[in-house]
């Protein structure tokens, strides 16, 4: 395989992973933008969706049905989370909201362990997600292509949503100035619910793709993805939607780059290096790449 072909192979890898990170990060950014809430439990929505899909697949349902059920389950879980855990503490200091999301994560993960046992279960991906295409020496997994295309379509739809629809623009407005949004007559509760719903839906999609990629699911599967999604969000600038997308792809590229460039002995430390890179980035751009460089206005 020539260097160029290797490069293409890795680039596809990076963009595929980056797509998943980007979709996750958008969900986080939407919620953070309006509520200033870092929702740790976002990762568990992946888990909820995957288990729901698994249950249906085990019951013999066709993949499309299971997939829709998984996405629906994530969305509903997200909405319940908002109503029960986050709405009562709206207006609380940021720290309190962060901690509450921590608590929700622990709750969901332990509940899942109770219901499904901590052992991982195989996720039977359908044929079209399990194959690989060969282009000469290149091997491209179909799940990567699907991830990239699904992400692409969703991103276009989302962009249209936030720029052309009333709800979308209201969402942007609410994330810029919540008080002004209320004074202008925006139903903030509804907008927040939309943000959670969309974010959770995206998490459901990511869950399916992730499970298909990895081949198995377990109650703690959401932990690393949400951590990565955070890093992606922070890289791009917390709360910014384009930032989340940019951060997701940057992170995907960074991971693959480090994987390739690190000497043999250091590859297991790759995740550590990713965080080191993050800390260095924050030193120069404390608000992320697309975040403002201005200090806080008094």
């Amino acid at each position: 395989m020539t260097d160029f072909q290797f490069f293409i192979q890795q680039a596809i890898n990076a963009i595929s992973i980056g797509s998943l990170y980007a979709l996750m990060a958008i969900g986080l950014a939407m919620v953070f933008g309006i509520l200033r809430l870092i929702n740790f439990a976002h990762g568990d929505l992946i888990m909820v969706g995957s288990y729901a899909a698994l249950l249906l697949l085990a019951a013999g349902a066709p993949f499309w049905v299971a997939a829709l059920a998984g996405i629906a389950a994530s969305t509903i879980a997200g909405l319940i989370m908002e109503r029960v855990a986050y709405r009562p503490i709206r207006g609380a200091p940021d720290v309190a909201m962060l901690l509450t999301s921590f608590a929700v994560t622990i709750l969901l993960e332990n509940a899942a362990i109770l219901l499904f046992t901590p052992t991982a279960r195989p996720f039977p991906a359908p044929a079209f997600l399990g194959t690989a295409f060969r282009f000469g020496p290149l091997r491209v997994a179909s799940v990567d292509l699907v991830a990239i295309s699904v992400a692409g379509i969703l991103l276009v739809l989302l962009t249209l949503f936030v720029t052309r629809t009333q709800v979308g623009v209201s969402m942007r407005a609410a994330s810029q100035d919540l008080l002004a949004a209320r004074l202008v007559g925006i139903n903030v509760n509804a907008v927040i619910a939309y943000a959670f719903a969309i974010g959770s839906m995206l998490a459901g999609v990511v869950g399916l793709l992730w499970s298909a990629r990895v081949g198995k699911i377990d109650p703690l599967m959401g932990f690393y993805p949400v951590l990565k999604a955070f890093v992606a969000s922070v890289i791009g600038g917390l709360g910014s939607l384009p930032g989340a997308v940019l951060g997701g792809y940057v992170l995907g590229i960074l991971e693959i780059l480090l994987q390739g460039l690190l000497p043999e002995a250091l590859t297991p430390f790759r995740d550590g290096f990713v965080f080191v890179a993050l800390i260095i980035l924050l030193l120069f751009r404390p608000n992320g790449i697309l975040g403002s460089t201005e200090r806080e206005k008094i």
Partner: protein
Amino acid sequence: MLKLEDVHVYYGQVHALKGITVEVQEGELVTLLGANGAGKSTTLMTVSGILRPRSGRIIFEGHDLTKISPYDIVRLGVIQCPEGRHIFGGLTVRENLLMGAVQRRDRNDVHKDLGWVCSLFPVLGERLRQTGATLSGGEQQMLAIGRALMARPRLLLLDEPSLGLAPVIVQTIFGVTQQLHQRGVTILLVEQNARKALQVANRGYLLETGQVVMSGTVEELRANPQVERFYLGGSAE
């Protein structure tokens, strides 16, 4: 049109409004005067439903505003232009103005109103595609007022529209306020700049530490030595 009856508002333990009673008739321009911390902004925020009173009523055209949500209050036509502008920095001027009309269903009239607001504040018309954050303070204030006007307010609540602005811009803003008043818009104006406020208002209330200590027509207020000394900068001797 608007009547606040014995409204008490608390911030936690702090008793911010101690039985405020204020009335605004249709077509009037009423001003709330007072020093910082007197409770003027608190009053407006309570009318808009952002804050809730512990007791008292706020009646607007037969509806008790203390019992309905902020967006329903906006739907009734009570629109606030808050202190500190609060425009949407990341949205364009045009998007900001359209946000003001977010509750309205009449698309064509919304666009007509957009044109009207731009005629009131030509500078906005020039900057329609710019984002809010790039505007100067005065331009942002005009945008905030323009956004409020896009909702076709039946009652306009203005909170310190001249705060921190250059005298020339203050002139423009008060000019527009007067124009609106002449057009028949009912306005409740909160101001620290008592002199300017009394120039445009019909009546006024003076608030001190959460209570109405004085009320009356503009002439009555101007004549009052206390008002003159503390808020109008001393007698003109």
